[in-house]
């Protein structure tokens, strides 16, 4: 998969840059190191994805590597308007329900409210999705993000396993030939 290879390349380059100064890397606290690796993984994923979706730009903006401050300001003011509108709707809906009393909310209204609630929750977990986005775009964005997140998990897992294997090779007392036999038998392509 071309995306995974691109992600891997970006990740390796980023990690090499961070660990090149071995003294500085090991001098970092555990938390700092974890954050650095996680940041490398996210930036690698966003860069590999490119411009086809909204979430990569949001990740890169958060990482401080883009200079699109202007668009951010515009987006955030639009966000405030949307949030205000949502709160107004909620308040109106709440008072109407209180006044209605005996009139039961139709199942359609309940379903609609639940979908809205779930949609808002979904916006929170996808980077950049809290901006004004219609339902269809949000769903497409969610699909795109899930697919690439899965790829990121897969690449990170393989990288960890490979680093672990190479340090075992280096530190082990077994002869190289026996280890190579073990490597070939284990399935690498999953």
């Amino acid at each position, binding site marked *: 998969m071309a995306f*995974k*290879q691109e992600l*891997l390349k970006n990740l*390796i380059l980023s*990690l*090499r840059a961070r*660990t090149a100064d*071995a003294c500085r*890397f*090991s001098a970092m606290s555990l938390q700092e*190191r*974890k954050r*650095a*690796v*996680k940041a490398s*993984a*996210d930036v690698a994923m966003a860069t590999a994805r490119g411009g086809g979706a909204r979430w990569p730009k949001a990740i890169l903006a958060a990482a401080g590597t883009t200079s699109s401050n202007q668009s951010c300001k515009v987006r955030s003011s639009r966000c405030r308007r949307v949030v205000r509108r949502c709160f107004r709707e909620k308040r109106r809906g709440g008072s109407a329900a209180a006044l209605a009393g005996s009139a039961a909310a139709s199942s*359609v209204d309940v*379903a*609609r409210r*639940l*979908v809205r609630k*779930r*949609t808002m*929750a*979904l916006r929170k*977990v*996808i980077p950049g999705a809290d901006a*004004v*986005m*219609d*339902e*269809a775009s949000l*769903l*497409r964005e*969610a*699909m795109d*993000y*899930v*697919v690439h*997140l*899965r790829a*990121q*998990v897969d*690449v*990170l*897992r*393989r*990288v*960890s*396993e*490979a*680093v672990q*294997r*190479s*340090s075992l*090779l*280096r530190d082990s007392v077994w002869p190289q030939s026996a280890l190579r036999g073990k490597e070939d038998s284990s399935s*690498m*392509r999953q």
Partner: protein
Amino acid sequence: MSSRRPRSRASGGASRISDEQISDLVAKLQALLPEARLRSSDRVPSARVLQETCSYIRSLHREVDDLSDRLSELLSTSDVSTAQAAIIRSLLM
């Protein structure tokens, strides 16, 4: 059981997003979720799909965090350049 969304809620742009388009996208999203979370043979309400997507994304985030932690620990004892050949070999083979 999927909710019917009124047309007037289509925001931004002149294109009107139809109910069918939305439920088609929800079905596609449902197909992405792992089998354990949703029985894809049944018709699942949109709200449920959205909820499961949310929790799936959160669990993927947790996996990324755990793997990053593990990788950062490994890198403190090893270094990337010596592992690079092994990594690339195992991933591209």
